[in-house]
Each structure stands twice: as C-alpha cells, then as structure tokens.
C-alpha cells in the first residue's frame, strides 16, 4: 500500500499529529485506528525506535516511537500519548506520537516539494511540506519505517 506519496493525496484527507514540537501528517487512508498508549512489551535486540509490541485485539502490534525514528528528542511515553495504528505494506504498525492535532483536506497543489537537503532521514521519510496558518506540517511516508539500515546492523 503505497498510498502516502504526493500523487496519491490529491484532494485527499490527511491526518496531522504532533511529535515533540513538530507537526507531521500521513494519508488518512493508511490509518486503521487511534488508541491510547499502553505499556509495550520490550523486544530483545530491537532497534531503539521500536518501543516494543502491544496486544491489538489478539494481534501483536509493533510500536514505533516516531520521535526516535525521526531523530527528534524523545521522552518516556505517558497516558497522554497516542498510538496511531497504520497499515504499511500489509503490516499494521503502531506509531507513538504526542497527539493527533488535525484532519486536513488538501489539494496536491498545496503540497510543496521537500527541500533538497542532505539529511538521510528527511530524504527517506518526508514527501512534501504543507503550510497552514504559519504551521509547517511535513507529509511523511511510512514505507521505510521498519526497513532501515540501522536494523540490518542490529
């Protein structure tokens, strides 16, 4: 399900969320549900951004700490944190974020290309930028969320 690319989101809805001080958004069609934070079971030898796994109605759901994944400062999650359950390439993944801030309806023309920077993280996740009332929201793709070079090293 490669639905979070720029072409696909023409006149579609996006779900915006906050991680630390930054705002991000993903295609709402990839979101299966949103739920509160529960303690995750730590997986041995997992990369740092994998918080562990939780029970999602009988399925084992890995939790990705987006802050760690995107190289932002992270804190221990509290009950105020939110997990966005997203469908990525036939798998369901929980994204640990601070809060869900908005649901946006956008047109393709509102999305600006991400600036050409050298940052590996930006290049592998950020698909475009939206500006909304002086807020900058990055449209991110989840395709490479788990498949990261860091993992093979682990």
């Amino acid at each position, binding site marked *: 399900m490669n639905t979070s690319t720029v072409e696909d989101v023409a006149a579609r809805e996006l779900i915006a969320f906050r991680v630390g001080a930054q705002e991000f958004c993903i295609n709402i069609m990839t979101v299966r549900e949103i739920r509160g934070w*529960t*303690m*995750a*079971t*730590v*997986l*041995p*030898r*997992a*990369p*740092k951004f*994998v918080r*562990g*796994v*939780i*029970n999602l*109605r*009988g*399925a*084992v*759901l*890995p939790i990705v700490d987006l802050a760690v994944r995107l190289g932002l400062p992270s804190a221990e999650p509290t009950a105020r944190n939110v997990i966005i359950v997203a469908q990525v390439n036939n*798998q*369901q*993944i929980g994204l640990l974020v601070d809060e869900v801030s908005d649901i946006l309806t956008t047109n393709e023309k509102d999305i600006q290309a991400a600036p050409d920077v050298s940052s590996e993280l930006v290049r592998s996740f950020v698909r475009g930028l939206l500006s909304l009332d002086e807020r900058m929201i990055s449209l991110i793709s989840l395709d490479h969320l*788990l498949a990261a070079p860091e993992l093979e*090293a*682990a």
Partner: protein
Amino acid sequence: MDPMAAIRDVFFQECEEQLAELETGLLRMEDGADDPDTVNAVFRAVHSIKGGAGIFSLDALVRFAHVFETSLDGVRSKRIAVTPAVMKLLLRAADALADHVRAGREGVAAEPGKTAALVAEFAVLNAGPSAAAAPPAAVAAPVAAPPPPPAPVERIWNIEFKPLAVLYAKGNEAALLLRELGQLGRLELDLNTKSLPSLAEIEPEGAYLSWTARLHAECDEAAVRDVFDFVDGDCTLSISLQPAPVARPAAAEEAPEGFEFEFFPPSAESSESEPVSEPVAEVPEHHPAAPGPVEAMAAKAETSSAVSATIRVDLDRVDRLIDLVGELVINEAMLSQRVLEAGIARASGVAMALDELEHLTREIQDSVMAIRAQPVRSVFQRMPRLVREVAAQTGKQVRLLTEGEGTEVDKTVIERIADPLTHMIRNASDHGLESPAKRLAAGKPAEGVVRLTALHRSGRIVLEVADDGAGINRPRVKAIAVEKGLIAADAQLSDEEIDNLIFLPGFSTAAVISDISGRGVGMDVVRQSVTALGGRISISSRPGHGSTFTLSLPLTLAVLDGMVVSAAGHTLIIPLGTILETLQPRAKDVHALDNDLRVLALRGGYVPIVDVGLTLGYSDQRIETTQSVALLVEGEGRTKAVLLVDAIHGQRQVVIKSLEANYRAVPGIAAATVMGDGRVALILDVDAVVSGTRSDAPREPSLLEAR
C-alpha cells in the same frame, strides 16, 4: 477472482477428494473386496473427474479417464476378472490419473509416454474375451445399474403401504403413488380403514389409512420400489413376492443413521386387517436374486448423507474465528482479574456468572479448535502410492497397513507432518525391510509389512511407523558412526544410544545409496522438522523383528504449554516440552570457563549456563546465581543447557501469536502470546538460546543493540 478460475479451483479440490476415494476403493478391492459398492465408488470417482475435466477442456485427462473408466466398467460388469495383475494396472492408472490432474492444475502437459503404455495395456484388457460392452445407460448412471431380471415373467407383488403423517405434510399424495403403481401392471387395491378413529378423536393432520395392493406385473422389485422413492421414510412399506419368496431388501438395517427406511413391520393394527398378504419375514439380507438395487440404494444414501454433512469453508474465516475466540479467552481472563481486584466475594452472583462464562469460553475454544482438526487420512492416503513406487524401484514386496486414519489433529500439523512421515515410510520400506530372498532365508514371508498407525495419547498425537524387517544393525551403525567421526572409536554405548545415532546429521547406513533414500540427509532432517513442531521422535528396534519409529506431536500449533518466568524484569514463556527439570543452583556448583561462559556441575557432568536476561539484552548485568532459578532445558540435537531466570511464575497454556505478521522474526524469540492482563509476552526460542552457547554463535550480547 475470475469466476471460472474459482470454479476451476473447486474442481481441482474435488479431484483431490475423488482421487483419494479412488485410491481407498482400489486398495479395498486389492484386499479382496469385490462388492458392487466399492467398485461403484471407484467407478464414480473416475467418472466425476472425467466429467469435470471435460468442462475445462483438459482433453488428455478426459481421454485417459475414459479409457480407465471403460476398464472399470468391465470390472463392474464382471467382464474383466480382478486378478492381481489387473489390480496393479488399476493402481498404476490411479497414480497416472493423479499425475494428469496435477498436470491439468498446473497447466502443463502430462508425460505422454507413461500414459500411452497404460492406455495400451487397458486396450488389451478391454478387448478381453467377451466384447459385449456395457450399456451406455450404465455409464451415465452408475448407481442405477441393477443386473437385469432373469426372465420377464408376470409376478404378483404384495405391497403394503401405510403413509405416515409426514408424507402428507410434505405435500405427497398417496393416490398419485398408487396410480403410478397401477401403471406397472394390473393392480388390485384394498383400502384399510381399521385404524381410522371416530370423528371426535380424529386428528385433522393425522394419517390413518393404509393400503394393501396386489400387483400383477412383469417388473422387478426395484421398479416397484422406485414408485415410492420420494416417500422413503415417510411411510411404512413392505413389498413381497407372492408365489416364490424373493429377497425382501434389508436396506433398513444397512442404511446409515438418519436414513429411515421402514420396510417392516406393518403396524399391528394394519396387519390384523390384512390376512391376505403374509409378508415374507426375515429373508436373508443378501439374496442373490436382487442385490443390485438394494446395494445401490444404500450407496446412494451414503453419498447423499455425506454431501449434506460437510460444508466447504475458507480457511481464513476459520482462522479469524479462532483469533477472535482466543481474544475472548483473554478478555474473559482480564475480566476475572478485574472482578477479583474489585474485591467481589467469590460466592456473589457476579463471580458465579463469571465462572459460567469461563466455562463457556473454554468450551467455545475447544469447539473452534476442533473445526481446524482434520483426520490424518489425507496424509495417510499418499503413502500407499509411495510404498508402491519404492517397492517397484527396489524390487521388494511391501505391504502398507494403516490404522487410525480417523485420528484428528490440527490442519497445520497435518501439513507439516507429511514430509517427515514420507521420509520415514520411505526409510522403512527401503532400509528397514530386507529383499524378498533375504526374508525367505530368514523364515519370513517374502512380502514385508510396513505399519503406519496414528492414535491420541495424553493430549498428543502419536504416529508410529513400524516395519517387520531386520531391525537396526547395531554393530554396523556403530562402525559407520566411528568411521564418520561422529563418535569416538572406544565409546561405550547402550543399544538405545546406538539406535539414536541414526538421527545424527550426516548419517546413512544404506550400503547402496539409492535414489529413494540415503544421501545422509535422512533421519536428522526428520528429527529436526519434528522438533520444530514441538514433537519428539524415538526409535525401538529388535534385531530380526524390525524397527518402530514413534513420533509424538502436539495436537495443535495454535496453543502451547509454557512455563511463565521472568528474566531481568520481563515476562517470558518457555515451552514446557523443552524443560527437563527446574532446580535451585548452588554457588559452589557454578564454574567459570572464561569471562562469559559459566557451567553448572550437574550430577557429574557440566552443563553450560545461559543467563536469559543477559542473552536477550534485557540487562547488562549478570544475574546472581543464588538469586536465580535454573531450568535445565534440552534444545535441538539434545544439546542441554541451564537457563537462569529471576523467578518462575507458573505454568499455563498460551495462544501462539506470530511476531512476523506485523513485524519480523526476532532472534531468540519464537513467537508471542497475550497474557491474562492483556499484555504481550514473548515465547523464548530455546533452540536459538541454547545454540548461542556453542562456539559458532556470537556470545557477546553487547554486540547486539539492546534497548
């Protein structure tokens, strides 16, 4: 999916079933069963495959099935005698038909050479002494092919017909049936109103009338019975021949349950009123005069009841249901815990209702798991062909006996035991049994027997493969093991230990490496796949009398008995099957081999110690031996190790959840499960952890990124 493709899929699924039926039938015939039932079943199977194949224009398949069918028809009409040679040909044809079906499914052409030879053999068979071909009608409707009556003489049939209330309730009309009967010949009809109550007592929808008929006709009994075909079980019917006693069909006794065909006796009140007809009582069940229709009818009833008894369900749906029920079990446990926490008394209504709920959930879980359970028949049915092929290639005479085909086990287990079982059967026929000459010299019959048995024993399925061959040649096995450097030359081994050597990797005893088995990837692979299923394999052998391999497997792969432990503060499940014992280690028994590796002195030996928390990276500090509990476990290839954990919390059955579905395989972890508090707990992969102590595996946990 394209609808035609879906139909095609169903066709091939049905083909598998028909082929299985064909094989079963042929084997029964080989055992000497020549009753029309079996022959008909075999014929029907081939005929159905042919019919379906025609729709999908699988011409090669249709042509071959047709030739096969023609011969079977010959067998059925007793034109072709069932000799062992013919049986062999038929069995080979069944194999070829299976090949054709497979080729059809994969869309490739079947080997023409093999088929051509068989077709030629069939041609010879079909052109046998009496060239009288069976009437085409018989081909179209195999079940309705009774042998014709000896001569068309007029006979007098005494028929007693008493409709039951249900006959009318189903909208049948007695008068129409009697009128139809009248068309067979001259009919004398007596109405019997004796059981008719007075108007005040009459039940409006009851049935009170019965008829006694005398039919003068040239027809046979089947024709008479056909008239009443649609009211089977809805009436009491008795048919007898007046002048000479002829078979009164005993289908009532033969019919399977749920098929109520009451031919006899006429109810007390009606017989009083009918002194004319004396139904012939207790005629032998299989009277030679008219076995056809009776047998055919019984067969028909059997197939129809089989059809209604099963439905095809997508496996995904069943799995979804199983998942949901697993979830229900967890939720129920969580609820119980909450109720307990709330301090509600055990005798209170809530707690009692909860007990009920728990009971119910367990029952639902058992029933749902039973849906996935299937008889091992599907695997067993592949074995006769295998044995035939091995026998043909090795020039041995092998007879396969199977027992307990109906034993049920989870579908995934069935799928995964097929390969090891194939290997074992092949081994038993190839290595286990001697050549006919050797057998005769040993005073045994030339034909060797391989026995395959399945049974349930204490919550597990036990599969046995036994042969009556020479048994394990222990001196040879030991010599080979020494030669291959698997054991020391001066090792002192018990008989049992020697037998178990054949499970070592790289071991093969066959003097001649054959195509069939014996490339040294034999029993160790079998053992590996069995252990992977959570099973165990053992062997017992008596020289001169044969060997028996015993496989014991869990009934399902969906649940597992585990020990709940904690390591470095994390809850883990250790599969119970791997745990040999638990012990409290004493500090003086622990010896350090080097910085990382410690061993525990245990009953004169030394067993490597694995600190679970450290190995999994949960902790970077070694656990204090005296503060820990040790579990002696056995991994793959009987490697033993001692696992150190914080504490043991108990034993429970857990539902296995895949980590790969949403994440990926995690080294050291076999799977996950959900505990009663709703949290995920990880199931330890004992093999991986134990093999981590060996030289080739990285021992330094800090190399692995721990969080």
